[in-house]
């Protein structure tokens, strides 16, 4: 029977306090803060982070499929899973698929992964869910929504958590939606959305899977289930008969926000982070119907403690000081740009150089052993021609050798910290620094690499790697 082999998560470094959003609109603030993707992040880059976290210490060659789930894929037409797989350095002969359009996409992908493993068509499948949804300014959704990503590796060996049962049903209702051209979420009257959408479906799914497994609320160590907001989450816990304090995974509304189709999986990862062998978890997700799972934690869970997951990413944060900057990050308001030429977008270059630009490989000279990025056909040191092999660099940490803080360069969040980094003390990488506090940038500071969007020129997205201060709790 398929189970969860590993997990990983990603939460952007920025937090925007709901009081600051409320300040802008003269409204009441919901409690706490929400995670906000930096200007150079989107659902694809966050998924890459979560997948890399999930696959830490795992042979990437063993992954047979990657499923990407989101309601906010960077492209309306063009796969994102293929980009995530390349950036996470998975092998080429795998199945990639995007699961989109439903808040439930993450668990639909999870269900498909479980089926693939159970059928024997794949040994190991990575599922990632990532969302960066926009509530219209001044709406409660704007305060509620946060950004983040989760990843699970499914397989049938070394499982940390067995999937004892899976249940799904479908439901057709127009409660929350977006048309092709909509930037912001649309929703029908709240009372209808909650009563006939969320509450009816969630109760139906949970009661069905519990009945199917012959379980009652007291048999569940931890209940993990989606809810649109904090109040509805607590109400649902009561309705389902769980003790909110001891039996229910905290939904992190006050620190993270509702991360859309990644939300339930992120809660599940938070639950796994504090779980013990033998724990039984109820996991349920809503959106155009419901998915529900009963999970059982195994002793293998003890090998999973080095993930950044939800816990470390939640603790590692930086305040986004004003709402206007949030509007800028999400390109909700136009902003005067520096008088510089827009960047080029050349798909043939991005394709030709995908190994160094997306997989972030360097060239290692087979003669003298030196590693360079960008890759060099003729070795800088010994002059050997075409005697090199690609080596992964994205996991290596480094120090900042020198930098500048450039106010002239075109950027979605000036100034630009241009950096020369020495990875492993000896591999020179020239790149931009992101997630930085410019007052804390110093020569010698430790940095790591992160996959980011460089620009949106030419009506397409161009991705590459940047350095950032190391994320730690």
């Amino acid at each position: 029977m398929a189970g969860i082999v590993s997990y990983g998560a990603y939460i952007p470094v920025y937090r925007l306090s709901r009081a600051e959003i409320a300040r802008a609109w003269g409204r009441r603030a919901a409690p706490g803060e929400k995670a906000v993707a930096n200007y150079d992040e989107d659902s694809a880059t966050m998924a890459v982070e979560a997948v890399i976290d999930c696959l830490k210490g795992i042979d990437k060659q063993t992954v047979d499929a990657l499923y990407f789930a989101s309601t906010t894929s960077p492209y309306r037409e063009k796969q994102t899973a293929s980009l995530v797989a390349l950036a996470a350095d998975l092998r080429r002969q795998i199945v990639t698929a995007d699961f989109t359009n439903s808040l439930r996409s993450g668990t639909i992908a999870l269900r498909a992964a479980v089926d693939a493993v159970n059928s024997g068509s794949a040994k190991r499948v990575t599922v990632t869910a990532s969302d960066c949804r926009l509530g219209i300014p001044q709406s409660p959704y704007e305060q509620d929504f946060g950004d983040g990503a989760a990843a699970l590796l499914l397989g049938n060996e070394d499982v940390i958590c067995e999937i004892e049962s899976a249940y799904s049903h479908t439901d057709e209702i127009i409660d929350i939606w977006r048309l092709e051209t909509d930037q912001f979420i649309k929703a029908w009257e709240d009372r209808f959305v909650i009563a006939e959408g969320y509450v009816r479906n969630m109760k139906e799914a949970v009661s069905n899977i519990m009945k199917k497994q012959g379980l009652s609320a007291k048999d569940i160590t931890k209940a993990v289930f989606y809810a649109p907001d904090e109040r509805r989450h607590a109400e649902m816990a009561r309705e389902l008969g769980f003790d909110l304090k001891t039996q229910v995974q905290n939904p992190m509304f006050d620190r993270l926000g509702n991360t859309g189709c990644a939300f339930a999986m992120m809660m599940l990862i938070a639950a796994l982070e504090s779980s013990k062998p033998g724990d039984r978890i109820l996991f349920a997700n809503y959106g155009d119907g419901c998915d529900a799972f009963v999970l059982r934690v195994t002793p293998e869970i003890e090998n999973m403690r080095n993930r950044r997951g939800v816990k470390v990413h939640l603790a590692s944060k930086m305040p986004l000081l004003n709402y206007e900057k949030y509007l800028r990050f999400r390109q909700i308001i136009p902003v005067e740009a520096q008088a510089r030429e827009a960047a080029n977008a050349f798909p043939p270059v991005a394709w030709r150089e995908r190994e160094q630009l997306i997989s972030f490989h360097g060239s290692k000279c087979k003669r003298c052993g030196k590693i360079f990025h960008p890759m060099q056909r003729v070795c800088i040191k010994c002059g050997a021609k075409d005697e090199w092999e690609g080596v992964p660099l994205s996991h290596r940490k480094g120090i900042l050798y020198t930098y500048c803080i450039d106010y002239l360069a075109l950027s979605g969040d000036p100034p630009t910290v241009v950096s020369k980094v020495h990875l492993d003390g000896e591999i020179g990488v020239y790149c931009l620094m992101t997630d930085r506090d410019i007052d804390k940038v110093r020569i010698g500071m430790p940095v790591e690499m992160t996959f980011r969007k460089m620009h949106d020129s030419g009506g397409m997205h161009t991705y590459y790697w940047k350095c950032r201060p190391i994320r730690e709790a």
Partner: protein
Amino acid sequence: MIPEACIPITGNADQSEKHDTKRNSILHASRGRKPKMETIKDKVAIIGMGCCKFGENWDKGADDMIIDAAYEAYEDAGIDRKDIQAAWVGTTMSGHGGVTLAAPLKLDRIPITHVENFCATGMETLRSASFAVACGAYDIVLCVGFEKLKDTGLAGLPAGYMHPVLGINVTAPGRWAMGATRYFHVYGLSPNEGRETLAKISVKNHYNGARHPKAHLRREVTIEQVLNAPLIAWPLGLFDCCGNTDGAAAAIITRAELAKNFRDDYVLIKGIGLAIGPGLGKEDADYDYVHLPETEFAAQQAYQQAGIKNPRKELDILELHDCFTISELMTLEAIGICPKGKAKEDIDAGTFTLHGELPVNADGGLKSFGHPVGASGLRECYEIYKQMQGKAELPERQLKKEVRLGLSHNQGGHPGSLLPIITILGRKE
């Protein structure tokens, strides 16, 4: 039948097997050695120069500025356009091909070459033309460098072709600022000390430029103004950066033995150094960001040709490519005027001021005179040429000392990828 010596040394090994003995002996003789070249010293003379008013020349097109510079040079040399046998024209982004010069000047059926070597383009026209004159191909050659930057509406230089990923977010001040950050760190200057040292260079160059009627930014500034100016690329502020300028400059050169037919106070080329490396300082972790190895090598080439043993003592004037103040500072060390890490001491002592021990950028440099990219190298030579002739426009600008030997440094690129041309100019003995 092709003479054996003409077989390209990079030719296919199998095809050229029969020439192996001869070819190998040529290769063996040249491999790993410096080119066996006669020195350019005293072979070429500058007999006329011109320089248009630099600035935001909204009312002038590139053609107007080319005409202004070239006709001043004709008049200075006492020649007519019909005397010109060949021409070299330099621009990085304001025109293409020889016709860009022939059209405004109505040059008719002569060889004209367009050269481009980043911001060293102006000096490249003189360098390329000098070798043509030295080998006897032409007697009278015109060099023109120009740039029309202010029509673009852009801040800083247009980037031109950019790699969609590796080439973006790259600005010239940013590249040099990375050198400044590292320089401060390595030589123990606090950011404030470092920025103040650079500010003194800016103050000096603005002082000098304020006195030149053709300079772009003719205004003195104080250290406080420099330090408090808006940041461009920390640690560099607005006044650490050269002007974005329109302009053109021109030179007429001839073989040295013909120069006396035109004037007595011609100026001789004593040496030209150009050293370009693979430019991989960004990628190579061994590059230290405080040395400018290409500039060091180009200076050695030029000194060797000119027979200069002690540049600090022997040179009377320096024109350095101060696109950014940190460039002037690092170049002073790279060309052997100051010991490594010690330029601050001389800057603090006022060594390089207009009437100091060794004036640097007496005309204001790129900082104040402005930087029309393709013109700057010839503009630097224009200043040394005029100072040597005792013809600085205003008496207060004329150096009090004898100006016998000067160095002009024009460069493209940035620490880690430099393209420096160093030309030594001298009066006839």
